[in-house]
């Protein structure tokens, strides 16, 4: 019997293969009820596969999975709202027709549909575009429509698979503002993303996933707590392994990683490190920036794939 205090999603050793490729490999996690839960990982780490399995759109995986205490099944989808990585609205339909179709598929009709659709169109700033074809909407508006569509039937669990892909920063802010202002606490939200800054600002709990398994989990604050206070980002021309080993040996130095010609060093006091770097590699240091440690630093510490993910995050 599933109680409101139980995790909405309980996954134990979930495995899923496509041919010889292992998309999920022993993924274990609990998603607490009412939380905004972030699933972070590079492309291909298994996030979307896990969302598809939760939505009962994939064949039953290995391991044990419970959503609201039950095995994922088509009937359970009535309690889920899903925003997929790609847009799922027919460009030939209008905004209102898109919502009406979703309403009929999810059993929202009549007065409830009218009320709910107007409420959501207003919340997501689409009320003036209700009669416009989806093809005339900007990328950000389409994502907002996806969000409104997923929320129409008032789902208890909202699954968001990279919901802000292709959305500019202003639109992102508007989208998250509209969503979290209304929905935080009223339902459980599971977000799969590789945008670390976004996850840092919106998620209550975060799990880092790599190669189909969870490598770290906690609140953003907990995950950052183990880090040094500051992060040095050093544009360094061809540092040698010996030079990096020297940096690691300095008192107060934490994680030292190299990606795309940039050396990331977590430290307690960055200002004392900068002169040492210039002494160590005179002429090779092009730029040094000092930041406070972020979820990104925690992520790289756990996942250790800085190069790949940096490329994806900045792409």
């Amino acid at each position, binding site marked *: 019997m599933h109680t409101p205090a139980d995790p909405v999603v309980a996954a134990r050793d979930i495995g899923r293969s496509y041919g010889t490729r292992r998309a999920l490999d022993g993924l274990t996690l609990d998603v607490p009820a009412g939380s905004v839960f972030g699933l972070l990982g590079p492309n291909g780490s298994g996030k979307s596969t896990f969302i598809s399995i939760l939505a009962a759109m994939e064949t039953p995986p290995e391991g044990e999975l419970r959503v609201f205490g039950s095995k994922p099944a*088509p009937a359970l989808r009535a309690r889920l709202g899903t925003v997929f990585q790609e847009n799922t609205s027919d460009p030939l339909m209008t905004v209102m027709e898109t919502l009406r179709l979703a309403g009929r*598929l999810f059993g929202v009709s009549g007065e409830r549909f009218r009320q709910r659709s107007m409420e959501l169109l207003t919340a997501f700033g689409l009320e003036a575009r209700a009669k416009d074809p989806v093809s005339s909407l900007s990328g950000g508006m389409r994502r907002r429509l996806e969000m409104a569509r997923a929320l129409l039937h008032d789902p208890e669990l909202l699954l968001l698979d990279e919901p802000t892909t292709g959305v500019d920063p202003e639109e992102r802010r508007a989208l998250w503002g509209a969503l979290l202002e209304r929905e935080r606490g009223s339902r459980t939200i599971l977000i799969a993303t590789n945008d670390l800054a976004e996850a840092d600002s919106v998620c209550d709990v975060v799990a880092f996933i790599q190669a189909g398994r969870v490598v770290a989990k906690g609140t953003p604050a907990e995950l950052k707590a183990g880090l040094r206070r500051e992060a040095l980002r050093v544009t360094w021309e061809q540092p040698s392994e010996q030079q990096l080993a020297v940096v690691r040996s300095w008192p107060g130095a934490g994680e030292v990683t190299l990606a795309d010609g940039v050396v990331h060093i977590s430290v307690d006091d960055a200002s004392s490190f900068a002169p040492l770097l210039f002494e160590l590699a005179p002429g090779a240091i092009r730029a040094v920036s000092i930041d406070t440690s972020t979820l990104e630093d925690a992520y790289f510490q756990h996942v250790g794939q800085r190069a790949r993910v940096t490329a994806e995050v900045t792409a």
Partner: protein
Amino acid sequence: MSSFSAWSAMFVRDMQSVLRSRSQLYSSMLTPLLFLVFLGNGVSKGLSPSKLTAGDFTAYLVAGTVVMTSVFSATFSSASFYRDRDSGVLRMLLSSPHSARVVLFGKSLAGVCIGVVQALIVLAVAAPFVGFEWQYGIITGFITAIAVVLLLNIMLAGLAQALASRVQTMQGFHLIMNLALFPLLFFSGAFYPVHDLPMWLEVLARVNPLSYAVDALELSAYARSASGFWGLGLDFAVLGGVAVLVYLLGLTRTPRLTWSGK
């Protein structure tokens, strides 16, 4: 939330979609009509075919034209599976609490409906201008034609759906549809009577379900008597049986969500 609500929503949505694609809507009726006007008149006047049981070749060709319209319509309607998959809509539809069959049923129903309406428009447009005999009377003949066209479109929708769920690309789908259906049209009696043909052609016509649709349509509108035709009883038995089987086959498999099917 009822399945009725879901499949009727799909039906309405696909109907809207087709009605908005004007070029698709008109071309699938105009092409057969042009065929009828030019080939029908050309052969009728230029070659004066003597083996026809009644009327001229243009009148004879109407049944084949109606079948051809249904074939075009089913092909176009089923392309919506690929459009829905590529635009991501299929993913949203399959994330609803209903089974994939409910979604497919609503979509195919819209395809059948459009096909029937288009085929009957072609029949209604042609009827006043050609020498139909209406051996059972106009009303009974037209009602019989509606029943034939309905069964034919159910069969074609099932076939198109079965193919769309198994062929990955729209280009491949069109290729296979054309490869399968054009020969079937040629061996169906759509363009010439299949009686008194060489044995191998007559055998092909006998095993071709489209032949029974052509035969039934000829009997309901064009023919002066049942002589020289297979008969409505056999036509409806074959068409009905094949339509049910093929339509159920079309519902057995969900179209793939992605190129890789994963």
